[in-house]
Structures are given as structure tokens and as C-alpha cells.
């Protein structure tokens, strides 16, 4: 993970913007960045110069902007951090989506890699705690709405709207994403999405290939198909045709 501390807040915002645009459109132009961030063209140019100096972007004058591999890693970290924070504010603290988003924008720049890691673990712990972290959370939200004490905080708590939670969208495609059939033996990856016929998808899910599951390609059959993978501590074989419907992020 690249240390993002060397970047100013605004440069971080630019980097995130370029990353998002690149993912969406493939190519990025200065004008688009200006629109995305909400600034004028000259400001973008000077920001780009600064990013270029740090080796994060390649930029031809009047031409297109592209992230260097280093720039992309940094941008990915920034996006993940942004998302984790938004999710925390929205899902755990119960802020509405818009407010969570805008506050995350302001807080995010101060978060170090370690804090982010811990935040993600906390999210995971609460979401998945087998003792029913979810119920625990629901009770806490209730308590916020009907606080046991009548202190002043009640006034601000009352603002909290029912959250629109989106804990599953955490698996985002990145540029390195590929499909399972394209991984080589020995390569590891994380499941992002499943597509294809519902019957097969259902079976794959039941067998433990859900988003986030870690897999390792063990080997190919002697005739090149099917493949053998390890998932959730056991070995599974599937044809390349089925593996092609599983989007993975190589690890």
C-alpha cells in the first residue's frame, strides 16, 4: 500500500476523481476532471502537474490523462478508505447516505492505513459477528432514537434517518479484475461477482463461492479442462466454462 501521506487533501481528491473516471470511461480528459471535482480547468492543470511530479499520472498536454501503476494503487487505497468510512458512518452510526458521503469526504484524508484496517475489521466484526452483531446494532439504533436519558444529545440523534445500508457493494471491480478461468495454477484471488445461468450460480454459491471468498487455483486437468481450485479449505473442480462466470480479483 502506497503511503498517501505525501499528498494534500485536494490532490487526493483529484487522484480519486481520475481513478473513478478512468474506471467509468476508460479515458480521462482534463475537462472531465474539472467537471467531476467542480473546479476550473487551470486548477486541474496545476494539480496534474503536481501529481505528475510525484509519478502518479501521465499527462500529455491537451491530451489524455492516465494513472501510472503507482498512481492506481494509491487511488485504489484512497477509494477503499473512502468507501470504508462512508460505510461506517452510514451502516454503523446510521447516518443517511448523503451525509455519510459528505462527511466521509472531509474525514477521510486524516485516516492512516492502520486506522483503515481497524475500521474494516470493526465493520466486518459487527456485520458478521455470529452472536448477532446485527441485532446488537439494531438495538443500539433504537436506543439512539429513544435514548434512556434526556440529555441534549437527543436533539441531534433525532435527525438520524433510517439508513440505506449497502454492505454488499463493497466488492468493486478494479482494473486488475479478471475471471477465474484466466488465473494460472498457483494464483490466488478473491471472488467479486458471479454471473451466468441461475442454476449454476446457485450451485456455485452453495459451494461457497460467494463474493469475498478467497480461492487458489490448484491445477488444470490433464486435458486442460476442468480446473481445480481451493476454496473455504476444500478442493473443488469446475469447468472453465463455469469459471468464466466468476469475476475475481487476483491477490
Amino acid at each position, binding site marked *: 500500500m502506497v503511503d498517501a501521506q505525501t499528498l494534500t487533501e485536494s490532490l487526493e481528491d483529484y487522484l480519486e476523481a481520475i481513478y473513478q473516471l478512468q474506471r467509468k470511461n476508460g479515458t480521462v480528459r482534463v475537462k472531465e476532471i474539472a467537471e467531476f471535482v467542480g473546479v476550473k480547468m487551470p486548477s486541474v492543470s496545476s494539480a496534474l502537474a503536481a501529481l505528475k511530479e510525484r509519478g502518479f499520472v501521465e499527462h500529455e498536454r491537451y491530451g489524455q490523462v492516465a494513472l501510472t501503476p503507482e498512481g492506481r494503487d494509491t487511488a485504489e487505497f484512497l477509494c477503499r478508505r473512502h468507501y470504508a468510512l462512508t460505510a461506517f458512518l452510514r451502516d454503523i452510526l446510521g447516518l443517511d447516505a448523503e451525509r455519510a458521503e459528505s462527511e466521509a469526504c472531509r474525514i477521510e484524508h486524516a485516516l492512516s492505513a492502520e486506522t483503515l484496517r481497524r475500521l474494516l475489521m470493526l465493520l466486518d466484526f459487527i456485520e458478521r459477528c455470529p452472536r448477532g452483531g446485527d441485532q446488537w446494532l439494531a438495538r443500539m439504533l433504537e436506543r439512539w432514537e429513544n435514548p434512556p436519558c434526556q440529555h441534549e444529545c437527543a436533539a441531534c440523534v433525532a435527525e438520524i434517518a433510517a439508513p440505506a445500508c449497502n454492505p454488499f457493494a463493497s466488492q468493486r471491480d478494479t482494473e486488475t479484475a479478471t475471471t477465474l478461468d484466466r488465473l494460472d495454477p498457483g494464483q490466488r484471488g478473491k471472488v467479486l461477482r458471479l454471473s451466468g*445461468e441461475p442454476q*449454476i*450460480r446457485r450451485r456455485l454459491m452453495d459451494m*461457497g463461492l460467494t*463474493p469475498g471468498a478467497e480461492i487458489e487455483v490448484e491445477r488444470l486437468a490433464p486435458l486442460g479442462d*476442468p480446473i*481445480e481450485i481451493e476454496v473455504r479449505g476444500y478442493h473443488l473442480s469446475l469447468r472453465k466454462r*463455469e469459471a468464466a462466470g466468476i469475476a475475481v480479483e487476483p491477490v
Partner: protein
Amino acid sequence: MVCVVTKAAPLAAAARPEIRVALAGNPNAGKTTVFNAITGARQHVGNYPGVTVEKKEGERTVGDAFVHVVDLPGTYSLTAYSLEEVVARNYVIDERPDVVIDVVDASNLERNLYLTTQFIELGVSVVVCLNMVDMAESMGRSIDTELLSELLGVPVVATVASKSEGVEELLTVAIQTARDGHGAARDVRYGRELEEHITELVELLEGAGGLPGVPSRWVAIKLLEDDQEVCGDVARDVPGGEELLDHVVRIRAHLEAVVGDDAELALADRRYGFINGACAEAVTSSAEEAVDWTERIDRVVTSRVLGIPIFLILMWGMFELVFRFGAPPMGWLESGFGWLGTQAAAWLPDGPLQSLLVDGIIGGVGGVLIFVPQIMLLFLVISLFEDSGYMSRAAFVVDKLMHHIGLHGKSFIPMLIGFGCTVPAIMATRTLESRRDRLTTMLVTPLMSCGARLPVYVLLTGAFFAPQLAGKVIFSIYVLGVLLAVLMARIFRSTILTGPLTPFVMELPPYRMPTLMGTLLHMWERAWCYIRKAGTMILAASVVIWALLSYPTPPAGFDLQGEPEIAYTVAGRLGRVIEPVIRPLGFDWKIGISLTAGMAAKEVVVATLATTYSIEESEETGSTAVREAMRRDPIFTPLVAYVLMVFVLIYPPCLAAMAVLWRESGSWKWLAFAVAYTTTLAWLVSFIVYQGGRALGLG
């Protein structure tokens, strides 16, 4: 269609309280071993009503309780993905067993608990049998059963069923749970967004009365998963069900927009999340892992270079064992029944009764039992392959080949066995999970030229082809069979047995040592089922064929005009009737009779040819004399001989094979179809070969 393996005396069931236990679990979790350890040999094997999914039952008395155990089909989940899953689910819903013992592989906890969460959701009393804890320990994993039990909210008992360890405790806990139930099991919570909709649906369902026998929460979750069975039930049984389903469609669309994935994926994800959390707490892995033998073996057994040679060697070994070692006991049975026939013939006066007893009944029973050694040996090998874990590797290795003809890697074994004998080959299709694959394989396996057809080829090539050509001629028939099997498999898969290809999503379980008891029970079960199910039909049909070939007899003094006696019988007349039909193939009525008789068993074709050519059967000289007689017959040319071989290759397999096909497909219709298609195909191919050959001037 219940086939009793060992009928235990009904243990005064009425006097004692009966406890009904359903045994569930993933395939390869050791469910059968647990079942055997609980019930011993007191098992019955049959089918679930209306389907060809096997149902095993057994009983056992523990203290004052009479325990009745039903072995549910092994499944990974309780969705409506496969027939097995539907059967297992419906059994639990409809029969309401007192307790479900869920056998869980301790060395593969995460995936195995997935099914457990679904049983808990179904609202039944569950006891988790944490099997193979020794394996888990050898992998450096120790599981806190008490903590796991607390986390899941159901009792957990550790066992090593292959050594019968912990099985008594399992039974005690199961009986107790069946009587008293257990505390509140812990449901998986699916996160706020999903829970909101689940709650909403539960309220709607409860308001409308719900579905009988199942918790509304479960129904709500299945509706969100778009489970077709449950959707159908709701539409039919819940007032306002249609509107409810429309509402579910809207919820699913909404969830997809909010959650980014469809609801099923989100639900599966949450279940695994729940399990993941439980495992993280209850399982401790020591840093040093023991040697992973499975991985080491697989590095050789499924490797690019050695995978196929090892597979071929094992297949060759299986073939040798079944057909070489099976041959002596078959010979003993044959001579045993021969001796019995001679004895009977000596004791009884000549006449119809003697003939019925000797040729019809003794011959028929012999014809049934003669296959038993082969079937037992075959299932010995299959059982070893399956229990050790090699079967799935074999499928893994050859799947690509089989995939080309629209079949599953596992179809290879039945088709290979088909070269030896069609009867065990059709029985071997039981290893296939998909019904479409099973039926396709069953229908094309007879095209693999079995051992009984070889004498026909040998006789005909010996009579009409030069010795240096004979081998090539016979080989071409085998190749033709394989090509036709491939062709027909493709045709069936794209016409009558269409549907998505069975996905090859198959577990490669760790290698394990098969248990002696498991293997023996499996062999015995198969052999006994064959005798009970197919045997009776083969016997009856043998008597019918005997009658057709013997009656009516020509009256005393009737002038046969040089024709053999058999020409006067029903079969003989049938030969005449079908002559116009087989004429375009170059056959006359004499060949017609042999082919009719050959429906009983292919080797009978040779014997009947001998009879129709009025040759007294006498071992050595017999076949030479038949050859001479055939050569003198103007109807027979090398081309006709070849066409006859082609016809014998393709047309309906022997009675025993047809009986097994009927039993294994579970329907007369498939048997009728198999007979019709092989007959038509035999005629068509023979016609093409004969007319083509004549056009080329080979006639």
C-alpha cells in the same frame, strides 16, 4: 419397489416409543459410515416414492427407545437445485422427523455448516454430528464443540464414525433432542436491508395463514431466493399468493438495485458470513500443519503427465478384475446350473414339464445368477473408488472428453464397463447425479459391444473372412459401436434429454481409507437389489422366450420339408413374418429366428443359428459345422455376415440388460424407448451398410 436387504424382525415397535431420525449431510461427509455405524446391517434399501433417488432406512434399539433412521440423499444445500435436494427437503417438511442428525465433516467445517444453517432455518430439531474429528486434528485443527454448539444453538457431538467413536453418545443426544427439543437455535441474520424485507414478507405470510409445517421466516427467505418449489406452493396454498409473489418480484428488483447483487447471492453471502464468524471462534488451527497427503497424491494422480496413464491403468485393472476374476465364479455357477439341469432331466420324464424346468426355469435362474459375481466385483471396485475419493478424480481427468458428447466425466465408467457387460454397466450409472446424464448414459451404453456379442462376431468372421482380416473386421464393429454411442448421446442431449449441461461443479474430497464394512455392505446391497429387482423379470421373460422357441411343436408325422423343428414354433413363424422387413438388409427368415431368440441373450444367436441349420450341438465340431452350413447357404455372403454383426451390435441388448434398464430408469417408457430406438437404429445402419456395400459391388 422396496428391496429389502436384511429384514429385521419388527422390534415390537408398537410397544416402544418410536423415534424417527433423518440423517442428513454433505456428500463425502461420512453420512453412510454414520448410518452403518448406527444401524449395522439392519438396513432396507428402496426408492423415495415416485423418484429414482435411493432411500435407505434402518433401525436400532437404544435403551427403551426404538430408533428408526432414514438416510437422506447427500446434499450441499436445501435449495431446489437438484432432485436430491428437493427430496431431502420435502422429506423433512412432509414427514417431520423427530430429529435431524446433520453429519458434518470436521475437516471441512465451513462448507458443511452451510447445510446446517438451512436445517436450522427450517425449524427442525437438529443435532450436529461433527464427524471425522480425527482428520481435522491431523490437519492441526481443534474444534471447541461446546462453543460451536453455543454459537449455533444446537447440540454438537464429535464422532469418528469409521471407528464407531462417539456414535453412542450421538444417539443418546439425538434421542434426548427428539424428546425434549433443543433451545432456540441461532438463526442467521441477513443484515438490515434483507431482514426488513424478510420481516415484511413474514407478516404478509402470517396474515394469510402461511404454509403448513414450515416457519414463515423460512418461506420468506426462499421467496427472496426465488425458489421455484416454494413459489409454486405459495401461489397454490396461500390466499392471495399471486399478489404476494408479485410483491416479491418487486422486492427482489429493489434489493438488486440497493444491494448491487441479487438477493440469493446476498443471502448465501450472509450465511457464509455467519459460519465464518462461528468457525473463527470455535476452531483453533495450530501453526504447524501435518503433511497434506491428499495434495501429495493429487500432484501425481491428476498431474498433466501421469493423470491419464494412471486413470487408464486403474480402468484396465477394474476391467480385468471384474471380467477376469469374475469369469471363474461365473463358470462355476454355469456348470452348477448345468449339473442341476442334467439331474432334473434324469429324474423327470421327457416332455414339456422337463423342458420347462430344465430349459425354462433352471436355465432362467442360472441366467440371472450368472451376473452376480461380476456385479459384486464391479461394485467392490466402484465402492473403493468412491470411498477412497478417486472417483471424482477420474471424472476430473476425463471430463473434457465426455463433455464433448454432452456428458459428465463420471459417465466414462459405465460406458467402459459396457464393453464387458451391459448389465453392471447400466447399474454403474447410479454414480451419476443428474437424471438426464443417467438416462443418456443408460441409453447409449448398450452400444458398447459387450462380451456376449463376441462369440457371434467370431463365428461370422471365422466363416466369411480371411483369418488375417478377422481381427480388423471385429475391431471395426467395436469402433462403430463407440461412434454410434457418441452420436446418439449427442442426439439425445439435443432432442429428448435437453437441458443445460450438468455443471461440473464437483468436490474433490480428501483421500480416505475405505471401510471394510462400508464396502461389503455396498457390494451386497447392489447384488441383492439386482437379484430382487431385475432377477424376477429376467426369470419370467426367460420362460416366455423358452415357450416361444419351443411351441407349438409340429404334430407327429408332420412333414417339415427339410426345415428344422424350430421353424414350426412361434419364434420360427415370427422369423417368417419379419422376413419382408429384414429382407432389405440381406437377411432371410433363418437369420430372423436367430435375431428373435437373440433378444434373450446375444450368445443365443449362435446357438439358434446352429439349430436352424439343423446342426446337432456338439461343442467343437458344432461351430465348424455351422460355419460350413452357413457358407453353403447362398443367402450368406461376407457382406451379409458383416451386416448381421452390425445388427447384433446395435439391436436391443439381452433380457437382463433390458430388465436392469427398466429398473434403473424407473419406467417402462424408457425401456420401450430403448428397445424401439436400438431396433430402428440397427435396421437403419444395417440397411445403409448392406445397400451401400451392394452399390459398391461388395454383395
